[in-house]
């Protein structure tokens, strides 16, 4: 039996200071999955790391490793952050709750900015990485594929994604609260990633006097600058550009702050104390928080902007309900499918065993009947065989139907499986069959088939 675990922290449980210390860069994410695979070769793992969350999904055998404590220690050791500094910000989920959580995340219901579509891409990237590295298997493959489908359906079939207020939109609104006009203003973008591009798009619409793009990789800077009629400038001359800039958008992948208080304080005089709006979209942050204490500096980080965005969603409860209903429907379908997949081989074996007993008894009874010619014997064999099959099917129908209904089970499927095995003396091959099904699933596309998925034992139902 497999067990699904989730360990994570997000914008609701952990402040940015904690999140940025536990965030994984793409390279770190890859290394973390490789390490997990190395340490726990039997376990499956997917690691989602975004600005707002770090979540580790693990699927493993019931009594296998890693356990939650080991997952926590893994995070701690990887980032060299003592456990007590982040333990209270973590949440743990298992089984149904973990599925619900993941589907909610993919549908952007757990995002600070409800309806933002970036999270779907981030979940896909995390899953793809694990799949490429062989860390996603028969449990996480169908789970994440279903999660992506849920996310897409929510975005396409509900108005959640429509008219959403973006982080860059809010940043522009804040800029309007500081500056009256932008024709004489200089916007400096430090970093040339996706976030920079989104923010730059918002500010370019204000038609500022100058748009500058500074990036370590000058080629990327030039490419981004070309899209917005901006000027690519060398990052080495950051001080000069900070003196000129009125609005700074920073979103680099730097681990250490790019702008510190001490550094910026020295520039205030050269700036002639002009107000400056600094938007720090990076996690870990590019701008030291103490910079905000300086006069004429308005520093906003990702959390500040997302909080403002979140306030705009209060009136969208109806849409939320609609999205949640879709998520719940998929959770239910997935769990039923998963349960059927887990119990299917055992049920199949149960039917086979009972039918075999019935067939044996029919054969024995037929042998006792004398005086039947060949056609009569054949007719009797057919009639008695059918009778025995019907009786077996009718007896097993109710318990099997109950087993298939996930809601009617009050304990993990494993317990029912174990009970079946013990009560009917089923061979452990039932479990092996389950494993082999999972192995087969690994090789196939492994897309959950939903509650209508044909099961190996359906033939018995039809016969009944």
């Amino acid at each position, binding site marked *: 039996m497999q067990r699904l675990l989730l360990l994570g922290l997000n914008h609701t449980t952990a402040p940015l200071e904690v999140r940025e210390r536990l965030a994984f860069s793409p390279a770190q994410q890859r290394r973390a999955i490789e390490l997990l695979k190395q340490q726990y070769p039997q376990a499956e793992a997917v690691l989602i790391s975004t600005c707002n969350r770090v979540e580790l999904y693990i699927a493993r055998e019931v009594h296998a490793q890693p356990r939650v404590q080991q997952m926590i220690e893994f995070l701690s050791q990887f980032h060299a952050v003592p456990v007590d500094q982040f333990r209270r910000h973590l949440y743990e989920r298992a089984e149904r709750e973990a599925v619900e959580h993941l589907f909610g995340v993919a549908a952007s219901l757990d995002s600070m900015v409800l309806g933002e579509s970036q999270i779907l891409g981030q979940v896909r990237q995390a899953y793809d990485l694990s799949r490429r590295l062989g860390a996603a298997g028969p449990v996480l493959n169908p789970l994440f594929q279903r999660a992506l489908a849920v996310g897409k359906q929510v975005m396409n079939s509900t108005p959640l994604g429509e008219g959403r207020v973006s982080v860059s939109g*809010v940043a522009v*609104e*804040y800029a*309007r*609260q*500081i*500056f*009256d*006009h932008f024709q004489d203003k200089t916007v400096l973008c430090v970093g040339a990633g996706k976030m920079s591009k989104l923010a730059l798009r918002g500010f370019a619409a204000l038609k500022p006097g100058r748009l500058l793009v500074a990036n370590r990789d000058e080629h990327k800077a030039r490419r981004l600058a070309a899209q917005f009629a901006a000027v690519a400038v060398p990052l080495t001359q950051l001080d000069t550009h900070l003196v000129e800039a009125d609005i700074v958008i920073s979103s680099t992948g730097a681990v250490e702050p790019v702008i510190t208080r001490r550094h910026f304080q020295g520039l205030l005089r050269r700036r*002639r*104390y*002009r*107000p400056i709006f600094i938007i720090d979209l990076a996690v870990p942050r590019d701008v030291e928080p103490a910079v*905000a204490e300086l*006069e*004429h500096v*308005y520093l*906003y980080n990702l959390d*500040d902007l997302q*909080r*403002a965005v979140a*306030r705009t969603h209060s009136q969208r409860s109806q849409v939320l309900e609609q999205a949640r209903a879709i998520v719940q429907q998929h959770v239910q379908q997935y769990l039923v499918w998963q349960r059927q997949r887990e119990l299917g081989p055992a049920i199949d074996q149960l039917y086979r065993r009972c039918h075999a007993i019935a067939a044996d008894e029919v054969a024995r009874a037929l042998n006792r009947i004398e005086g039947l010619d060949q056609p009569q014997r054949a007719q009797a064999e057919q009639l008695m065989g059918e009778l025995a099959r019907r009786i077996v099917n009718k007896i097993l129908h109710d318990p099997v139907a109950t087993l298939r209904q996930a809601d009617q089970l009050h304990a993990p499927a494993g317990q029912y499986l174990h009970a079946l095995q013990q009560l009917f003396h089923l061979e452990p091959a039932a479990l092996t069959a389950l494993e082999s099904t999972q192995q087969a699933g690994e090789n196939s596309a492994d897309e959950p088939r939903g509650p209508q998925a044909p099961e190996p034992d359906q033939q018995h139902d039809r016969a009944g």
Partner: protein
Amino acid sequence: MPSAGQITLVFVSIALFVVGGVISLWRLRRERAWQRAAARLCMWLGVLTSLIVLVWHALGRGSWLPLEDNFDALIWLAVVLAVFVMYVQRRRPIGGLDWFVMPIVILLLIGSAVTGLTDPHAYDVKTIWSWVHRATAYGGAAAFAVAGAAGAMYLIANHRLRRKVALASGPRLGSLERLEQLTLTSVTLGFALLTIGAITGFAEMIREDRATPTAKIVLTAAVWLIYALVLHSPINPSFRGRRAAMLSILGFVLMLGVIFAVLLMPTTGG
């Protein structure tokens, strides 16, 4: 001495401005078109009523020259400020400007009603220079009132931006840049008018050998110095922003002191 009818009309004008202000504040809870229209109508009617009082009072005095007594001067000051607010809000609105300037207008009208009910002293307008002194002094006061209001708005907007709640519920005041610009423009105008007022007043005082209350001179000098500091901000930019806003508020408070000094301690002949 204003008639009872004129005083009543002043109270009507005050009531209209108060009602307009309440409706305007009500819009904070829920914005509706009729509220905006009603608030604007109250403001216009308030101005119109004040203008009727001015005309009636001029007819009563038998002179069309404004600012001949403090009752008349305070109403003029209130009207100028109210018209300024309505002009700005029509041309390029600054959110919440009326909430900050209109209380000053109401306060000035109450002042005029009180002086009208008690014993308003007539200004001794002998020469054109004494009238210029009065007009520029009151004009300066109006400009400083706007500067003070813009300064207060700047401080609130700045505080909200620093607390990162500028987009949360509550009034959206104008941008910091615009408020700072409004403060500086008002202070520049007010400073010029105050300087002219101070020079002409001083010249008149010497020419007529009059004794002017010391408090008035000291407060005027203090106001002049404070606004000189605010105007100094383009040269020394460390004075811009919050400091300039705080100084403009302080200057306006002192300016109110000058007005009260004038009202309570009239100039006596030497």
